[in-house]
């Protein structure tokens, strides 16, 4: 079904794929986060090996007007390294859990990247000039005796090949006992929040030795632990508001003006559960793996194991829209529990105008829902559909009975091919989809 994400004639095409074609994927190469910056010109990925790769969109050239700007490597660096906490006998993975860009304020670009324990602020800057013409050194590079230098020579700035440098400007460490699952830059552009399983901290971007704890749900007795924080995000416009989701499928909205510690929520979002459908799996599949505000700030979207829900911030008792991602998995929950897939954390994202939402699934499928037309589409990220500008064919999973041609049965789905991370360009119909160790970029068909 065409038409999702744009008008009726809308279709998605393959644009690029990054990464190796190896059958044997090294764990370090598994992409763990994907994020466009505010203009969409830069696309950052983080992987399990602690590395960040940033792609930059090429300016559209007059020679090839049909090929929208391609994304090419701009910078790559090792953000985090494996560590060992000897005191607690804890191995700290270098896996990048999240990357969040800061809005651009000068020529350099800044982003926050985090692993389980430490958040880092990286500055990515360009250098395309070099000072030349010093007369302070000999031919062989040794410093000349100052008394031998008789003329004053002012160095001249000469162009050089573009060099992109990444340097860590701030390291925000030692504030999280548990594993960081989210970071979110505040709309004031001065502060950001970081959330782990039980606590949320507020930081100032300039200050690394202090952070404020704003949410603490750790019970006095750990035996009484019933839920953990799964995701958190700052409101896009109101710098005093943030939300956090839980493993029980609830979302709490907090207002930092209400108190220093936001343990008491301002709003509590929960969809009442049908008691007759309660099962062993209920709580596990209701656990929210991602929460994202709409660009407008009026709605938020949550992802649980089987569905995506859109909530109106003014209505706490139920979502305004619910989209089934892969309802056919309901009859597979036993085996999904046994192979741990039921604990997979899928993310979700909005398009720039908030008219469409996207999330991933298994078998390298990803789903898009158009909120206006109520149409949905399933597409696949695979090397087989990777001819330049090839139109992506909608995919369909058959749930029982006769399987039509081109459909795939639930039992044939590859549960190792999971699309957990996707990102949508903030202004255009360009999307980035992480399929294990490959990054796919799709865009809308020109004409």
């Amino acid at each position, binding site marked *: 079904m065409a038409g999702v994400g744009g008008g009726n004639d809308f279709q998605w095409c393959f644009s690029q794929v990054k*990464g190796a074609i190896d059958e044997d994927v090294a764990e370090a*190469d598994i992409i763990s986060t994907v994020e466009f910056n505010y203009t969409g010109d830069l696309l950052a990925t983080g992987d399990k090996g602690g590395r960040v*790769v940033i792609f930059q969109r090429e300016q559209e050239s007059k020679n090839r007007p049909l090929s929208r700007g391609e994304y090419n490597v701009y910078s790559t660096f090792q953000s985090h390294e494996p560590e060992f906490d000897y005191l607690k006998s*804890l191995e700290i993975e270098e896996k990048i859990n999240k990357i969040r860009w800061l809005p651009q304020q000068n020529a350099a670009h800044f982003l926050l990247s985090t692993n389980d324990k430490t958040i880092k602020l990286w500055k990515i800057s360009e250098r395309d000039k070099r000072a030349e013409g010093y007369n302070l050194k000999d031919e062989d590079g040794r410093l000349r005796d100052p008394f031998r230098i008789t003329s004053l020579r002012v160095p001249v700035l000469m162009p050089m090949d573009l060099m992109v440098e990444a340097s860590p400007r701030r390291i925000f460490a030692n504030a999280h006992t548990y594993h960081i699952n989210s970071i979110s830059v505040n709309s004031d552009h001065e502060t950001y929040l970081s959330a782990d399983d039980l606590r949320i901290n507020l930081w100032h971007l300039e200050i690394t030795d202090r952070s404020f704890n704003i949410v603490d749900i750790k019970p006095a007795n750990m035996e009484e632990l019933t839920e*953990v924080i799964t995701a958190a995000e700052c409101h896009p416009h109101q710098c005093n508001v943030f939300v956090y989701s839980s*493993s029980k499928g609830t979302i709490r909205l907090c207002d930092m003006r209400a108190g220093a510690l936001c343990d008491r929520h301002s709003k509590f979002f929960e969809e009442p559960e049908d008691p007759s459908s309660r*099962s062993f799996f209920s709580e*596990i599949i209701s656990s929210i793996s991602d929460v994202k505000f709409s660009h407008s700030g009026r709605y938020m979207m949550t992802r649980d194991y089987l569905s995506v829900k859109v909530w109106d911030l003014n209505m706490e008792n139920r979502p305004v829209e619910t989209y089934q991602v892969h309802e056919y998995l309901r009859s597979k*929950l036993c085996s999904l529990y046994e192979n741990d897939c039921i604990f997979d954390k899928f993310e979700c994202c909005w398009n720039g105008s908030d008219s469409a939402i996207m999330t991933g699934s298994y078998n390298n499928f990803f789903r898009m829902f158009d909120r206006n037309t109520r149409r949905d589409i399933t597409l696949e990220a695979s090397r087989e559909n990777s001819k330049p500008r090839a139109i992506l064919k909608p995919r369909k999973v058959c749930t029982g009975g006769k399987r039509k041609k081109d459909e795939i049965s639930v039992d044939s789905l590859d549960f190792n091919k999971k699309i957990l991370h996707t990102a949508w360009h903030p202004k255009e119909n360009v999307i980035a989809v992480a399929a294990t160790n490959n990054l796919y970029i799709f865009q809308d068909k020109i004409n």
Partner: protein
Amino acid sequence: MSSENQESEAPLESGEEKQQDSQEKDANPVKSEEAKLKSKYPNLGQKPGGSDFLMKRLQKGQKYFDSGDYNMAKAKMKSKQLPVAGPEKGLVTGDHIPTPQDLPQRKSSLVTSKLAG
């Protein structure tokens, strides 16, 4: 589940029965999955999705290796067999003494990402 053709041809009664059956199946795929799970693992926690999961989640990454404990255990149990790491990933119980072989090698990936290649 019967196909549409079958249902329209069959007499009304069995058509209704078939509908009821498939409705029951539809209503309880999760219940049958739950029954399947319980039959495989009868000892699975009484509390559905409760503390056990959360504790496991919070303890992710905990690896214990104490050379003192290890050597003492080796000395004490010269005759008996040393308890070996179970198949569960990273689950550390009180009796289990990790051996250097159990702990995964901490790899350092200071190689450039293949995405940049």
